[in-house]
């Protein structure tokens, strides 16, 4: 049991604990905080996997934007501070059964594939600087991934405009000039 394995087990346990507490907590702000713990755990795992740029992007995008957005939505959609009603559906046992069965199926698949079990030693990768540059070039290279990159940017633009339009207050603004 090397030091790296202990570190991985600790971070993995924290991530899973955060995930379980997210889906179990009644108080939504607490659930959002446990989600932040899970997201931070995933960022730490990215660091272990030597994808440093993705780790920092995970913190900046997920924790710094999406988690704040979720907390904002929780604050705006509550009439009283306390939760009302049970946290889970009447069919929660079916959901738990489905999740367990899917997990069991995935475990069976992992244990049967020999190639994955053999990938114990980590193969070598390039220099971190070179990796980041390669990622940047790959995203704009005409022969590689510029089309998904552009489509993702159009998707983000559409989501931005759509979110602003959908979340607009219901009253129409009064017909006057906008202060040009």
């Amino acid at each position, binding site marked *: 049991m090397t030091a790296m394995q202990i570190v*991985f087990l600790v971070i993995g346990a924290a991530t899973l604990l955060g995930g379980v507490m997210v889906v179990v907590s009644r108080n939504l702000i607490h659930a959002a905080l446990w989600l932040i713990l899970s997201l931070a755990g995933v960022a730490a795992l990215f660091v272990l996997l030597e994808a440093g740029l993705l780790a920092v*992007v*995970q913190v900046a995008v997920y924790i710094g934007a999406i988690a704040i957005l979720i907390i904002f939505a929780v604050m705006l959609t509550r009439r009283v501070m306390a939760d009302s009603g049970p946290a889970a559906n009447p069919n929660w046992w079916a959901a738990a059964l*489905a999740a367990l069965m899917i997990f069991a199926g*995935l475990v069976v698949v992992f244990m049967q594939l020999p190639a994955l079990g053999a990938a114990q030693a980590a193969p070598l990768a390039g220099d971190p600087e070179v990796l980041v540059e390669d990622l940047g070039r*790959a995203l704009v290279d005409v022969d590689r991934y510029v089309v998904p990159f552009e489509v993702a940017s159009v998707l983000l633009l559409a989501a931005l405009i*759509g*979110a602003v339009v959908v979340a607009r207050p219901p009253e129409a603004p009064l017909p006057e000039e906008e202060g040009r």
Partner: protein
Amino acid sequence: MIPLTWYLLLAAGLFCVGLYGVLARRNAVAILMGIELMLNAVNLNLVAFWRYITPTVIAGQVFAVIVFAVAASEAAVGLALIISIYRRRSTVVADEINMLKW
């Protein structure tokens, strides 16, 4: 060294926990949090496979970056919808938003 299967098991576990959250929770924002857990599990899987199977090809990280963008836009639109529904119906419990049910 950490075997690849450990990462895959962790990602599978996180995915199933998120799946339980999506299927079992009543509050729409909590369902969205489950979706975020699932997307994170997918990202973890992608980067683990990139690192262990094809570390010289950058496609794994590119895929993960695109998943970041998709997750962000989906969270934004989903939360905008939830806020808009809350304004009209004063509830975010998924069972009570059932006007289209027959």
